[in-house]
Each structure stands twice: as C-alpha cells, then as structure tokens.
C-alpha cells in the first residue's frame, strides 16, 4: 500500500484499475437506468416525475463525498507531505464542482413540478450553493498561485477551513425548518424508501461513484505525467508511447 504513494507506482496501478472501474460503471449505470426508468413503480404522490431522484441524489451525495475526499487529501498532504494526495485533491475539485452544479440543477428541475418553484432560499439549498462557491474558491486559488508547492499547501489549508460547511449541509434539514425533505438513506434506522425504488437508487449511487473514480484516476494520471515530466521514467517509458 505504501508503494502506491510513489507517483510511478500509482501511475502503473491506476492504469490497470481504470478499465475495471469503467466496467463497474457500465454495469451499475445500465442496471440503475433500466430499473429506475422502467422497472421501478411510479410514486403514489409524485407520479413519474420522481425519477429524477436517481440523478439528483447520487450527484448530491457525491458533491459532499468528493469534498470529504479533498479535505482528507489536504490533511494527508499537510501532515505527511505526500504529494500524491495533492494530485488527487487538485484533479477532484472541478469534478466536485460539476456534481454540486448537477445536484443544484436537477434539484431545480425536480422542485418546479413538486414544490412549484425552481429555487428557494432554505438551509439545504443555500448551504449546497455555498459548497459550490467553496469549490470555485479552491479552483481559483489553485490557478492563481503559479508556484506548485505553494499552491498545494494553500489549497490544502483552504480545503480544511471550508470543511465546516459539510455538517451544516447534512444537518441543515434537521436544524432548520426547510422545504427540502429530511434524510432517507443516511440516518439511524432503516431507509424510509420502498425497496423497489431503493435498489435502482443504490445502483445509480454506485454508478456515479465509479464514474467519479474512473475520471479522477484518468485526470490524476495526466497530472502526474505533467508534474513528473522531467523524471526518467516519464521520458523513457511513457512519452515514447505517445504517438504525435
């Protein structure tokens, strides 16, 4: 496991993993799509329109999960000085922003027929919007600092300072009176959702997670090649394979 902290080992290992992760994505996405769009029954209250949940919930969960990953990598980078952790954090930030934006957008699409409004300034939506701004801040700070090492440490500090928003987002539906509903999955006790709808939801969560893992690993490999471009293993082994 410790060998993976070396960029070269990580490059080799992730190259082997990526096809499998894409395979997992294909299976889970196929199952989730068929089950969610055809096999799962309509909701007694919301009819067929609830099916956007199968996109909205996984993207929202991933928007929080990716930030937790970035904050963990920030901690590892600052405390143990493992540069690979910073590589993962830097490539995950745009992906996290994408998932947050997707969660807000699909939430608006769901809100209009169900709540009667595209947007409302309740605690859950507002704190998710703040999370989007935090991601933008991370991306902007990384691009604004020309020196690689300084950018790595500064973004790590910023990621750790912003982690306070995560419990606020998760518990916002309990601490405040919100229009957004409370948790059905991440709670003490059994999930409050029918099994016929739970299965496609779990499949889509796995699919989105696999998508993130695959794309993140591909971007991380690119970033490693760029950062280590003067190393011998890059020049000899990898660049020779690229056809111009």
């Amino acid at each position: 496991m410790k060998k993976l902290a070396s960029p070269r080992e990580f490059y080799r290992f992730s190259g082997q993993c990526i096809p499998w992760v894409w395979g997992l994505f294909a299976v889970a996405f196929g199952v989730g799509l068929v089950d969610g769009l055809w096999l799962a029954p309509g909701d007694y209250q919301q009819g067929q329109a609830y099916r956007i949940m199968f996109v909205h919930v996984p993207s929202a969960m991933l928007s929080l999960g990716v930030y937790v990953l970035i904050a963990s990598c920030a901690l590892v980078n600052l405390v143990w000085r493992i540069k690979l952790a910073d590589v993962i954090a830097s490539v995950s930030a745009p992906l996290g922003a994408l998932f947050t934006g997707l969660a807000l957008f699909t939430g608006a699409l769901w809100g209009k027929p169900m709540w009667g409004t595209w947007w409302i300034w309740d605690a859950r939506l507002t704190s998710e919007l703040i999370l989007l701004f935090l991601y933008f801040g991370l991306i902007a700070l990384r691009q604004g600092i020309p020196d690689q090492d300084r950018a790595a440490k500064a973004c790590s500090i910023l990621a750790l300072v912003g982690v306070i928003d995560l419990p606020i987002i998760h518990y916002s539906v309990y601490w405040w009176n919100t229009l957004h509903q409370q948790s059905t999955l991440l709670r003490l006790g059994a999930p409050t959702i029918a099994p016929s709808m739970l299965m496609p939801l779990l499949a889509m969560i796995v699919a989105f997670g696999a998508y993130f893992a695959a794309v993140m690993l591909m971007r991380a490999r690119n970033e490693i090649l760029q950062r280590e471009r003067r190393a011998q293993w890059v020049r000899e082994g990898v660049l020779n394979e690229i056809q111009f």
Partner: protein
Amino acid sequence: MLRKFWHYDLIACFRCRAELLLPVIFFVMVVALFPMALSVDPALLQAMAPAILWVAALLSALMALHGLLRQDHADGFLEQCLLSPVSLPGLIFAKVWAHWLVTGLPLTLLAPLLGKMLYLSWQGIAALVLSLLLGTPILSFIGAAGVGLTLGLRNAGLLLTLLVLPLYVPVLIFGTSSVMTATLGFPVIAPFFFLGAMLVLAITFVPWATAAAVRLGVG
C-alpha cells in the same frame, strides 16, 4: 511582547488618520444607497434594515481587509518576523485585534445611528450592536486567513473576495436572524450563542492557519 506589536500597529494606523475613516464612510454610503434605491416607505425600510445594515457592515469589513497584512508583506516586516523568535500566530492574533479596533469597532459604534435612519426599533438596534460586536471580529479573523493565503498574488483582491465570502455567509445569517427575531419580540439568545461559538473557533484556529499561510507566502 505581543502588546508591543499591538501598540505599534495602532500607532501606525493612527498616523494616517484619514484612512481610518474610509471603512466608516463606505458603511454610511452603502446604507444610504438603499433608501434611495428602494423607496422611502418606513415599513419597507424597517423590514429590510437588519439585512441592509449587516450586508453593508460585511462589505466594509471586506474593503478594510486591504490594510491588514499586505503592507507588512510588501515592506519585508513579515519576513523579518519569520527569521526572529517571535511567535507568528501570536503576532497575527495581535494584529487582527488591532485591525478590528480601528475598522470593526467604529462600524459597531455607528450602527445605532444608521439603524435609526432605517427606522429600526430599539430592541433591534440593541441586538444589532451586540451581533456586530460579536460578528465583526469573526469577519476580521476569517479575512486574515484569506489575506494570508493570497499574499503577494496577482489578483489578490478579487481572489480574496471569492475565498472569503462563502465563509462569511454563516456569520451574516446568524447576525441578521438575531436582529430580526429581536424586532419580532422573540427571545434572541440562540443566534448570539452561535456567533459566540464562531468567534471562539475563529480566535483559536485562524492565527495558526494564517501563520502557516504566511510562511508559504513569504518563504
């Protein structure tokens, strides 16, 4: 030792006394823009007063961050501090309190006058002053962390705003909710507990984080 830095900082600030008034004048002008833009209806202004006053105070605090660590970085004082046995978190702690005394505190003291201009009730003004008293130091501390992260960068001002505004939002929310619950006559202790908790967290962690960021920016 820290008292000396605090003392020197205050003397330096009072040397250019005209600059001290800038955040205050900005605060007054922004608050004055709203009655001009909206309408002179007292009921409307009274309903919007907590939000207007808090947003204006927040923007004035953001503008005032300009003078926090940048001059010290530019003339090499921070570099000297890194080379000396001075504790950098302690220095930053002293500097931020000195900065708050000359920027945040005048805003807090001017708030009752501006509150009355927007027809805010006396309970509302009391809650406003207390929320600003707790909230403006939090804004100064979080701003200090932002300034530390963006020391010497090209787009430092704009980047600072982008980094710091999401972190300012909880302070804004609790500040305005305290004033609004006070004007409605409800018990108002809960938002002050939150603001107090945020202040204690900021005082504890920010000097440390800012010192790490300064070491990055200078070294």
